[in-house]
Structures are given as structure tokens and as C-alpha cells.
């Protein structure tokens, strides 16, 4: 089995150096991953599946991760000489920087043909969390992503282009939000559920128009 660095170099040689970045995992598990550029992701996925040295034919786990916008405070220390001639003062200046957030899709790949015990992990990131949340679907490459990408769409709101049947899967169809996002606000009252009923009543008004304001008489009920 090739190391992740070797896989990265081979992807970079074939798809360009900008297509892949190695993301290190500092924890004891040391399961590092490859961050793929989304424009080339599906081609890279096909390459990973079909390459005779890798044969990652089994996409075990596909899931989303939410990384909200993060305010990073950086402290820089500068020494300023005292104009009165005393010892130099150390001045701390704090600068705030907004690290833009993103939504991430993580795929754990294994090879059933080669029986690899360690996963090859690939990640895709959206541009932001609000208006540009599309990623290429990997369902055409691995069918096992079909329901899992629907679940990511449902719970995180990542829109997978090229998915054959992208609908909500766990929440009901009329549900508006994406509950696994970190900034999701849970409802005040869990008993109340939005149902299509209110919309239906609203639409029904078109059939039974309200009496115009000029008529002062109450409309008679026709028999």
C-alpha cells in the first residue's frame, strides 16, 4: 500500500499541483487526509477507484463537517524604546482576523480488492457556508454515497451537483433549516411542527376571495 504522500504526488502529477493538499491530523490516530479541489474531485475519485495500485473500490463513510466563521485573535509583541531613556517596553497589539468558514464533506475509502486496513481519507470544501455550497457528487463513482450525500444535504445543506436524486432523507420535506450546522437554533416548542396545512390554507384563499373593502354589506350566503 502506498503512503498518502505518494498518492498525493501521483494525483498532483496527473491533475496539477493545485488539485490536492495533504491535511495532517495531529491526534494519536494520525489518520491524515487529502483535500481535493472540487473542480477535479470526481476525476480524482475515478482515478483512486480505478488505479491498479490503489483500487479504492469501497467508499465506506461519507459525512459532513461544519466549520463556522472563526474570529482569530493574533497577539504580536513589539518592543518600543522608552523616550525617557528607561528600559524598553513590550507592547502587545491584538489584531482580529476573520477566518471564513466552510462546509466540508469527508469520505473514507478502503480497498476491498486489496483488503487495505487503513482508510484513505479525502475531503472536499465548499467556498463558504451561505451562498456557494455546491460540491460535485461522488455518487456516480461510488454508489454507497447515494444515501449518505442525501443525508449531508439534509443535515448540512451541501448541494451535490450530479447526484441522481438529491432530496431530504431524514427530515421531512417541508423542513427549512439544516440541523447539524453549528449555528442551528433548535425550536422553542418541539410539539409544534410546520405542516403543509398553513400553505394550503393560504393557497385556498385564491378560490374564496375576501369581500372587497368598498362593499359594506356582509355577503349573503348563496344557496
Amino acid at each position, binding site marked *: 500500500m502506498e503512503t498518502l504522500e505518494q498518492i498525493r504526488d501521483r494525483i498532483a502529477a496527473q491533475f496539477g499541483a493545485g488539485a490536492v493538499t495533504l491535511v495532517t491530523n495531529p*491526534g494519536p*490516530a494520525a489518520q491524515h487526509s487529502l483535500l481535493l479541489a472540487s473542480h477535479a474531485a470526481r476525476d480524482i475519485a475515478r482515478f483512486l477507484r480505478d488505479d491498479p495500485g490503489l483500487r479504492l*473500490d469501497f467508499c*465506506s463513510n461519507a459525512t459532513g463537517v461544519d466549520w463556522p466563521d472563526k474570529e482569530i485573535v493574533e497577539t504580536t509583541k513589539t518592543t518600543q524604546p522608552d523616550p525617557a531613556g528607561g528600559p524598553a517596553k513590550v507592547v502587545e497589539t491584538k489584531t482580529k482576523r476573520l477566518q471564513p468558514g466552510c462546509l466540508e464533506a469527508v469520505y473514507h475509502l478502503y480497498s476491498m480488492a486489496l483488503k487495505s486496513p487503513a482508510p484513505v481519507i479525502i475531503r472536499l470544501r465548499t467556498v463558504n457556508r451561505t451562498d456557494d455550497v455546491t460540491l460535485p457528487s461522488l455518487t456516480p463513482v461510488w*454508489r454507497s454515497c447515494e*444515501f449518505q450525500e442525501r443525508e449531508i444535504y439534509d443535515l448540512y445543506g451541501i448541494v451535490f451537483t450530479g447526484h441522481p436524486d438529491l432530496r431530504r432523507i431524514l427530515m421531512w420535506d417541508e423542513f427549512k433549516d439544516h440541523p447539524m450546522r453549528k449555528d442551528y437554533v433548535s425550536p422553542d416548542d418541539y410539539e409544534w411542527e410546520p405542516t403543509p396545512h398553513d400553505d394550503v390554507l393560504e393557497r385556498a384563499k385564491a378560490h374564496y376571495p375576501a369581500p372587497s373593502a368598498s362593499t359594506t354589506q356582509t355577503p349573503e350566503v348563496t344557496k
Partner: protein
Amino acid sequence: MSATLPDINIALPNGATARRVEDEFHGDLLEISLGPHHPSTHGVFRMNATLDGEIITTLKPVFGYLHRNHEKLGETNSYLANIPYTDRLDYLASLTNNWAYVHAVEKLAGFVPTERCEYLRVILGELSRIINHVCLVGFLLNDLGTSFTPLLYSLRERERMLDLLEELTGARMMYNFMRFGGLRTDVSADWLARLKTYLEGLFARYLDEQDALLTGNEILLARTQGTGVLKPGLAINAGITGPGLRASGVDYDIRKVDKYSIYERFDFRVPLGEHGDTYDRYMMRMLEMRESVKIILQAMRDLPEGPVNDPKAKSRGLRPKAGEAYGRIECPKGELGFYLISDGTPNPYRYRVRPPSFINLTVLEDMCVGQTLADAVITLGSIDIVLGEVDR
């Protein structure tokens, strides 16, 4: 009039032919919704099927009736407090859920379980597999119309094993028994001896009885052979794991591939099917139970003395270093994995369950199209789902 009508036979995907009927109903498709409350769906699962006569033309599963956003709950709990929640995923085999979760946390935090603990986990995990397969075989045969008797025999055996587990853990289904680097309590020699007596005595008799009564039964063969066929290529691509994959002839068992825990020390076989039909999936369970008994007896024979808990492993207030880990085990239904991201706080930043039942349903439509509705019921039964895990 009738003599002028062409006699047209329609070839079905499974090789059979259906004869076109020329009457006023010809071409009408019937849409029916099986579930969410239907005895064959084993919970609140729904299938929207379109039928041409008795033959299924499309079948769309509908999920979410038992959804409680388990993963969001997991992010609000501490690492230790998640263990009882994992019991509620696949509630027919809770001990393997516990095991998969503590296995992932041990990877995340770098704990190593003690030797005695590993052996006891293998014993309990395989017992859990037996309980799950006993249930599956019973319910599958009930779906086939065997009218309760085999189910009653199966539940009788499950009851005996649940009694043993209740004595050990205090609970019949929600065991909450595994801890990071160990178990909640040690297991007594007396309990192990009684488990051994049971597995070698009554349980062995149950397996033989089930095989003699049903495995070679002509009606069972006629009903299950050739139905719900899953081809190995599709099974791999669709991420099917567990006995359903091995019934299609793909030799992939995580106990053998990952060699997690201490499985490489035991001598056991991985049964493989040939046709990928409902009968092969049924046989996988019957054969795996015998292998599990073999593993348990070997683990009991080699069980070392020593501490059951790793004194260095911290349970309360565990704050793993920032990082992530994916840990997976072979649970009775397939690959159960937990993907955890830690940001150094007492709660997981991301807590993901890779549910085997949910992903195994990806190919339900492919297996059922072209079959009769009655065969769809047993195909679903042989996939083996638990809705606590599908909907999470």
C-alpha cells in the same frame, strides 16, 4: 377477437417471463405504500412501491420516522455520556455498538485496552452477534410465513442469552457496559462457565434443530433461492458490508482485514455465499453463529487473568488532543464505524455514526425490482435492518 391478439411474453430482469394480459386494466400501475406501520418492515420504515400486477417496477425507501438527530446529541454530550446513547442505535446488538464507539475513542485518545478486557470484549461481541442473528433468522422465517414457531424457538434462545447478560450488566438490552480502555465491571468465572454450558448444550441443540427443521426445507428453498439477488460488483460499489456482502461471494470481513482487537489469535472461518440471494443471506447467519460459538469458546480457553481496566485510560472529563479518528468494527449487520473529531474540549466536535443498516438499504430497489411484492418483504428481512440505526 382473442385469436388475433399477439401472445407476448415479457422478459423480466431475473430471467423469468411474465405474460402480458390484454384486458381493461392492462398497463395500469398501482402505487402502494408499505409502512411506516407494517409488520414486515421491522419498525417504522416505509417503502413506496409501484406494482405492475404483483411485480415491483419501482421501490423507494422513505426514512426518518425514528430520527432524533443522534449525531447532534453526540456533539452536546461528553465522550463518556455518549456510551449509553450508542446502545439505542442497533438495539438488538448493543454491545457491538458500545465496542465500536469505545474503539474509535481509544484511537482518538491513544488508549490501549488491557489484555483481559480484549478477550472479554470478543466474548461479549460474539455473543451479541449470536443474539442478533438468532433474531434475524426468527423474524425472517416469520416473514416467510412459517407462522411463529421458528420465531418462538429463536426468541426462546435469545431470552436465555438476555438473562445471562442481564445478570452481568443489569440490563436486558441497553447494556452500557464498555468503557474507554476497559469494561464497566469484570466478568466472573462462574458466569463464563454458565455461558459455556449454555453454548455447548442448549444453543448447539437449537442450531441443529433449526438446520434439521428448516435449512433444507423444500418450501424454504423454493421461496428464498433466486430471490433478491445481489451481484458482487454492485455490492462492493454500493458499500454493502456484513453477511449481505459475503453472501454475494466477496471475502471481506473486518475482523480478518483490520485485525482489530485480538481477532488474529482465533481460528475461525468466514462463510461465503455463491449466489447472493435470500437463501445465501440466511445461510450466512446460520454459519456465522457456529463460527461465533467457536470464537467464544477459544477466547474462554485463553482468557488471561489481570486487570480489566486500563488505569491510565481516563473516562470522566476526557479531553482528547485535537485531531480526528475513524474506528470501525465488524458488527453483526456490517461495518459499524464512528468518526470523531476532537477540538480539545470535553465534547466531540463531530460525532458521526457510519450505520451499516442504512447504507445496506442503498440497493434495496435494485434487489426488489422485477420481483413479486412478497419477495420484497423477505428481501428486506434478509438485509437485516434496525430502524434505531437507520434513522438515528
